[in-house]
């Protein structure tokens, strides 16, 4: 195997970890509430802008920016749940789609109005540049995002499978009336789910901001990948999103390098569709 090929695969894994990172919030909301959050990409975008603001106001890097973004977005998640989601969940599917899509546009153009259309960027090397291991170049910022992706996935997985809070959330997802009879408040559980999902998404945005450009429409560019990652991984499966993210990252990079970048999406989506043909519930989703 040629050396460049190894570099391509390593790059693909790091990229895939990032995909997984910004998909975990979506899979939680999608799997638990059956709500497709079209504003997901714009939550990522908000996380990026929070990181940017934290840097310009306090000169602080992602170590401060990421927790602040997570906290602010978690708050926003709760507000969005009580202000919008709780009501549209009772409505038809179309209301959910249009509701979250409207939210996406509202967020996107509020940022557009406040910050303008200019591209922004955090300074290069805010996380310590690039280092070489056996000649392989690894960006510290991407590695950090990758490590955090693993931690977030592990954390969410443990939360859902090992804690009573997780069990309550899953109970609500399974049958909210029955959960209510058992003394669980579905509203509280779902608000918590939204807070966690939005918080994880904000965290992802703040970390992606360390190596990507920041612009109000960036959610559009990133959002679509999140949807594919979640459906490939299996709706509601957090580890599934991680495996799917890594897979998509590596396949994208390999096909871009070996066949050509204009064909990489064809390869990824063709494999994606043929996979769903055999396993519609995704890699790790329950059938």
């Amino acid at each position, binding site marked *: 195997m040629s050396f*460049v090929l190894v*570099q*391509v695969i390593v*790059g693909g894994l790091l*990229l895939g970890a990032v995909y997984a990172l910004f998909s975990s919030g979506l899979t939680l909301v999608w799997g638990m509430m059956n709500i497709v959050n079209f504003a997901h990409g714009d939550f990522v975008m908000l996380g990026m802008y929070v990181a940017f603001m934290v840097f310009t106001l306090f000169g602080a890097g992602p170590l401060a920016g990421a927790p602040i973004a997570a906290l602010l977005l978690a708050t926003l998640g709760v507000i969005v749940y009580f202000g919008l989601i709780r009501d549209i969940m009772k409505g038809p599917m179309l209301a959910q789609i249009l509701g979250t899509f409207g939210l996406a546009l509202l967020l996107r*153009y509020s940022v*557009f109005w406040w910050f*303008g*259309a*200019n*591209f*922004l*960027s955090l300074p*290069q090397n805010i996380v310590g540049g*690039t280092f070489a291991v056996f000649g392989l*170049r690894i*960006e510290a910022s991407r590695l950090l995002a990758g490590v955090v992706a693993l931690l977030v996935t592990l954390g969410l997985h443990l939360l859902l499978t090992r804690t009573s809070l997780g069990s309550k959330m899953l109970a609500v997802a399974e049958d909210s009336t029955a959960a209510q009879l058992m003394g669980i408040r579905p509203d509280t559980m779902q608000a918590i789910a939204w807070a966690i999902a939005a918080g994880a998404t904000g965290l992802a945005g703040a970390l992606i901001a360390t*190596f*990507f*450009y920041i*612009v*109000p*429409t960036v959610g*559009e*560019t*990133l959002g679509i*990948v999140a949807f594919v990652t979640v459906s490939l991984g299996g709706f509601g499966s957090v580890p599934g999103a991680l495996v799917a993210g890594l897979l998509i990252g590596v396949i*994208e*990079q*390999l096909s*871009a*390098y070996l066949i*050509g*970048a*204009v064909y*990489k*999406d064809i390869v990824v989506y063709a494999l994606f569709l043929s996979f769903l043909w055999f396993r519609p519930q995704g890699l790790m989703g329950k059938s």
Partner: protein
Amino acid sequence: MKLKQFLGLLCAASVTIMLAGQASAEDKVVKIGAIFPLTGNAASAGLHAKYAIEVAMDIINNAHPELGDFPLAKNAGLAGLGGAKVEVVFADNQGSPATGQNQALRLITEEKVVALVGAYQSGVTLTASAIAEKYGIPFLTPESVAANLTERGFKWFFRTTPIATDFVKVYYDFLTDMKAQGAKTDNIALVHDNTEYGTSVANTITTGFKEKGLNVLDVAYVSNATDVQSQVLQLKEKQPDVVIMISYTSDAILFAKTMQAQDYKPAMLIADDAGYSDPSFLKTVGKISQGVFNRSSWSVGPEGSPTAVIADLYKKKCGDEMDDTAARDMQGFLVLVDAIDRAGSTEPAKIQAALKATDLKPNQLMMGYKGVKFDEKGQNILASAILIQLQDGENYVAVWPKANAAKAPMLPYKGW
């Protein structure tokens, strides 16, 4: 009684005359439609185009004696139409060919504009101008460069900017010059997106260069990429002597960041305008793109010159320095309004005839073109470009050809 009636009539008559007077003053407005990407991924470029056109409106609609003999500046409004003011209706094409087409239709049928200008992305200009052609409304593109735009046999389409065939010559002559000075220039990589702009410019350059015996490596990618690592690795492996970038802003920024991360510096990096002229590009990644060459037709002249005055007005308007794309937009708009002024009419056919008769000299232009004169396809045959270089990572300086150069070209590419 009779006197009262008479006075009453007099009052009514004077009111009527006043109203009529107002109506005819309102008639003296020339409505022009401008289609640009005001939202979406190219909004940065689109909004700068809007600012540039607003500066042009200020110059046209108000008296600007400080601009001297610059066309349309001296008096307020259009002299050819009895001092009529120009009004521009801006429409957002969202960077989408379909939206651009709908907006052109809306501007023509509902806003009743007499001419159109736009639409930044070649792919959008392609569809929007087809509507203008159908309705017999002049469409001038100041900045879309895809070659096929003027190959459609359109009668109502005009283009002021230099196009891909002009760039091929500029790039080839520049490379020949650099080769004479000892640089290696035999293997060229063309990195381009898959939009109308990216593919058509890349095709024209490939054909032109291959005829001259240069080796061309084609590195295509899908625009608005989430990642460009593999493209950069491909370049790093193939080691071309010269890399030419044909990219919009978002991808241009991503390439700059990724090239630094992968520690890849080509010996010579040339950008084909577009994203690399966006002020956002300089602010975000200018410092890690030191030494990149860029195509341009704009340069701020000496203090007090019309171009310096215009650059000042523009900076006051939007806070950014004038860039080549915004300047080409402004120039195109001025050429269009100049034609309307000469036509002395808002009738589309007369404006079309005046556009065809356009013959502007270099001293009547803000851009470094050799003039503006359209051939039968609507292409400005006197358009030309120079090369500028980002030597300090903050501002471009003119470096080639020697006659226009403020500094000598700096080689090799420095990066960061």
